[in-house]
Structures are given as structure tokens and as C-alpha cells.
């Protein structure tokens, strides 16, 4: 996701955490690297929910 460093500083500040400008730049680059996650997230069905993962693990444990 693309979020510029200044916005990141404001978001962190709203949570009571101060970031320097270089640090905010690093965070911005780190967030940008997450972009491929959207490819899968955008395919999610309306009904998908986190519990499905745990249900599959439990089923596999009973195999």
C-alpha cells in the first residue's frame, strides 16, 4: 500500500508514537512492499472469515 512518510508520521502520532522523517520513509517503503497481498485479498468472497483457517487445521488434525 502506498502511504507517504508524512501521512505515516501523522498516523503514528495519533497513536502517541513519534517517528522521525527517515524512520517514516522506511515504514513507507516497508508498506509499499506489502502490495502483492492485495492480489489475494481482492479475490476474497463477502462471506470469508478468519475462523475458516482454524477449522481447516482442526479437520486436518483429525485426518
Amino acid at each position, binding site marked *: 500500500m502506498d502511504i507517504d512518510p508524512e501521512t505515516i508520521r501523522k498516523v503514528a502520532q495519533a497513536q502517541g508514537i513519534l517517528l522521525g522523517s527517515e524512520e517514516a520513509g522506511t515504514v513507507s517503503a516497508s508498506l509499499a512492499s*506489502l502490495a502483492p497481498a492485495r492480489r489475494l485479498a481482492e479475490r476474497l468472497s463477502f462471506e*470469508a472469515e478468519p475462523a475458516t483457517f482454524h477449522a481447516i487445521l482442526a479437520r486436518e488434525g483429525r485426518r
Partner: protein
Amino acid sequence: VSDPALLTLAEAARRLEARTLTSAELVEACLDRIAAIALGLNAFIAVEEEEARAAAAASDARRRSGRALSPLDGIPLAHKDMFYRRDHIVTCGSALRRDWRAGTTATVLARLEAMGTIQLGTLHMAEFAFGPTGHNAHLGPCRNPWDRERITGGSSSGSAAAVAARLAFGALGSDTGGSIRTPSHFCGLAGMKPTWGRVSRAGAMPLSPSLDTIGPLARTVEDAELLLKAICGPDPEDPTAADLPAPDGGGPIAGLRVGLPASGFEDADAETVQAMEAMARVLERLGAVVSTIGMPDIAGISMLANTVLFAEAASHHGTWLRERPQDYTPQVRARLSTGLAIPAPAYIDALRARGPALASMLDGVFGRVDALLCPTVAVPAPHIDRTDVAGSVRMAGVLGLMTQYTRPFNYLGLPALSVPAGFTADGLPVGMQLVGRPFAEGLLLRLGRAYEREARWHEHVPPEAR
């Protein structure tokens, strides 16, 4: 073998059982080597010599009276400094917890202690287990026994260095994105990341609970199996710990189906790819059926994993980030701060996508093969100075390379075993992952043990540890 420290854990256990060796001899052999080698590797945070000697004497007394607690009674181990021990300092590799004493004992340590194993000390790790290289600006870098100018990998850096240098017979580590397998690859060890929920995490420092797992780093797959069996099982202190029989790595591999990935691992260097193909040929010769298999979107899955990791880590560290930001190193503070800016829907999407991604992997890959064989890391151990990126903008790229092939399997919750699979022309170890269905650790251990009996890479010892 003249130096008992060079035995594998399984061999040492057999010698203890046969009474041809004592625990005191094993502990002294390890302490001698720790005195000679450990400082140069920066592998230990604390060495507990007197406690280890006293524990060895007690173990030998039990053996003499026929009351050994288990086959592992008297085996010297050492563990990443993130497993709580009541009234002991547990630093988590940090300044924030430099003097912190735990009020409880981690289930995994309690189980090993109940079996009579001995803890030689606590081991180097990335600050709060949040770093894949082995750098730690508080402690200095941990150094690879195969080449001290190279990284060990992390975050279980000291676990890998200590076991590879034959300073301990095995070690526990944690694996949230590759922290057992990456250092196992760089240091020539067997490392098992179990299925999420196979091993209790009670009393272990959390990083990202949706992804955190605990497992062994060992000289051989056989040793890794012994340690995994010792620590797994249900635990009232951790409701996610599964009530299932311990995995069994015995049995033939003839007929087992092994898949080589058709995509997703293109960044692996030529020597790594050659090692993977050579390992596939050995497994084929042993009777496995090897084929190439289509893969899901590994890069996308990897970044879903990072979304979960960053968001959860930022949550755990929020109070300290507000109140004691100066006590973090710049790299860890920057990585934790990434989670502050991840929108809540993006984090929840990453959790919602987990079920469909796992279902797709089970149907698409594990519907056709029993195990996936793929590189653990794309490259062998890089130089320390080339990976010391601190909190710079290069951080995401350099660190991402370390865990791009391990992280997806944390997200999917799958078991993954990294096994030694050869050496580069420069003499650096190369590891390969065997990945299976949830709770298929036994099958992975079976493949790994069959391969190691044939390939015998575990018999190679770092030059300074011989």
C-alpha cells in the same frame, strides 16, 4: 569419535543409555568448546556452567540408580533467550528486558527439564525475534561457524551457531516467518517449523501469535525429531496446542510423492537450484515419486504473512513504542512502526484470506503430492556487512530476501523441515525445505531422515569446530 561433543544428540543418548559416557563428560566437553569458540561466534548471551555441572551430576546419579527420566536425561542443550524460566532473566535479545525476570516457565522448557535435559545457557537472538539476519545492535552480530564474516540468519541466530559449532546438542528456536529454517539453512542444520498449534507457545515471548511456532534446531533430522517429540502435545496453558500423537519419522519413503515447485522460487541462485535438483534425484533413487507441481501466488501469500506479522507485532509492542522508543534498535523500531500504519481492514483481510489460501494449497498442491521440496532461502549466507542495513529504506528488500521462501508456510500454518542439502563452491551450507499438510511432520521427518542417511551432509563439521 574422540570428542563427545561431536556426537549427534541421538548418538549421545545411546551412549548414555549404554553407560559408556556420562552426562558430566558431555557437559564438560560442551563447556570446553564454549570457552574456546563461543565468544568469537557471539552465540551465547549467558553460560550457566555451575548449574549445568550440578544438573549433570544429578542426571548421572539417576542413571546409576536406574531412574533415568527419559532417553534424553543428561543431554546438554541451550535455547534462544525468549523462553521464560521462573526467576531467571530472559532478555528476548533486547535492552527493554535486559534485567527482566520471568514469573513463569515456558511449557517447552518445563517438558525438556522433566525429561532430564540440561540447559547450558541462553543464546543470541534478534531483538524480540524480529529480524532474519542475526544482526542485533544491542548484542553485536552472531557469526556463522562456517565463515565468521557471514551471517547466521535469524532470529534464532545463537541456536544455529551453537548447534553448528557443536557447543550444544540441540536448541529450541521460534519461527514466525522463518526464524528456525533460515538460520538452519545458513548454518547447515536440520530445523523444524511445526504446524501452527503442534507445540505449546505458553511462556514463550510472543511476536505474532497467529504465526508464532516453536521448534528444534539440530545437527540431524533424527535429532530434530527427538526434540520435537519431547516438546509437542496438548497443554492447558495454551488452548491452541493440539491433542494429537507425537509425529513419527520412521518407515520407508517408497511411493511417497514429492513435488518440485513450477514457480514462486525464481530468485534462487544456481547452486541452490542445483542442490534442490540433486536432492530430488536422491529421493527418487530411494523410491519417492518426484514431479513438478503448479504453485499458488507465493509472493502474494508472503505479503499477506507480513501484513499479519507487522500488525500483530505493533500491537504487542504498542505500549513500549510509546513509552520507551529509545530502548529499541532503529531497525526493530522501524519494523514495528510499519504495523502502526496498516489499516485494520487490511489486517483482517489477511486473516480472512488465510482459510481460502490454505484450502487452495491443500487441494492444488497437497492433493497431488505428499510433500513439497523447495529452497529454504534463495542464497547462501551473505556477508555480515552487506546485510547490516539497520533501519534504512533498504531494509524491506534485504530482509525480505531472507524469508521470502519460508514466510508463506507460516501464513498457511504448514509444517516445514529444513534439511542440510549440500555446500556451495565456497563451502557454505545449503538447506532445502520439505513442506507438508498440517500435522504431517512425521512424513517430513521420514523423508528427511531417509535423505540424510543417504546424503550424510550432517557429517560435515565447520572447520573451527572439528
